[in-house]
């Protein structure tokens, strides 16, 4: 029981202004990194942007060099990653994080992709992705995501693993919205 409470306290930001989310954004395109960084800053988030999954794992302390996971290592509240990248893909990063037997597994991971491939979306959600955004990502997408995360944090409910998994069984409402808004 104490552990779940600790998880909640760590999912809330550890520093910065109240309600400030720290987002880790991963992508191999300069332009996309600049745009996503701006979208997140406008949405009042603290942002760290990295160019590859390897760098993301290094930042999180999951690159095998640092095996001792403690609460101080949990630096981010949300990870947003491109799907297609040279080397390790966003999907592979998602799997790596969800396989962690630690607090890292609780970090929501959002996949971004320019390709609207239903099987891809389904496998990401199955693997535990919080949401799947079609690129180009809009301000409304980011605001919806960050508002949702802030609401979750403020509810004060215990976000324990079992609960989370039951949300993941069906595609989230937010994904349905993002699919609909991209029909043209």
């Amino acid at each position: 029981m104490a552990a779940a409470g600790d998880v909640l306290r760590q999912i809330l930001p550890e520093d910065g202004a109240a309600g400030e989310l720290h987002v880790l954004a991963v992508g191999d395109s300069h332009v996309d990194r600049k745009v996503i960084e701006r979208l997140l800053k406008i949405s009042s988030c603290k942002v760290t942007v990295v160019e590859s999954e390897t760098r993301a794992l290094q930042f999180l302390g999951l690159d095998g060099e640092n095996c001792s996971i403690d609460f101080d290592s949990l630096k981010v509240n949300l990870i947003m990653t491109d799907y297609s990248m040279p080397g390790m893909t966003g999907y592979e990063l998602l799997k790596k994080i969800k396989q962690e037997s630690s607090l890292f597994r609780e970090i929501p991971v959002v996949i971004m992709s320019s390709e609207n491939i239903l099987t891809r979306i389904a496998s990401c959600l199955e693997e535990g992705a919080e949401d799947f955004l079609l690129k180009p990502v809009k301000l409304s997408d980011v605001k919806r995501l960050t508002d949702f995360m802030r609401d979750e944090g403020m509810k004060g409910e215990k976000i324990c693993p079992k609960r989370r998994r039951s949300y993941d069984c069906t595609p989230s409402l937010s994904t349905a919205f993002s699919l609909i808004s991209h029909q043209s």
Partner: protein
Amino acid sequence: MDVIQWQKQLLDHQAVMLREGFLDDQFIQLQKLQDDSSPDFVIEVMTMFFEDSENLLNNMKRALEQEPVDFRQVDAHVHQFKGSSASVGAGRIKNVCATFRDLCEAQKLEGCVTCLQQLQHEYSLLKSNLQPLFRLRQQIQAAGGSIPIMD
């Protein structure tokens, strides 16, 4: 009053570029991301886009000159270009990239070479059409005016 004229010119020029497909709605979205804390955001992103584009076009050219051509390599560059052009609202470029990807998949060398030429052409058209837009934006800002945003 100069600022008012410049603002009108800016909106007109942008409207033409939108109508002709050089730019799409994403470019309008980008403008909403510019504010006092990031006053040169649009120009910064577009400058980055120009740099990336020039690299990618070069890479495509070199990849198409290899013998034999590695179409997956060509496609990888086109995919990147398609992504970044979509991110900045470069509509025509994005569309040509889509066709280019199909040609890569079908491994049609001649078609790919033609597509690359088309891309280079579209890129230089976009770049030269954006210059007056950037100039007007900078003039308006320097005069203390606000950049009008289209809905």
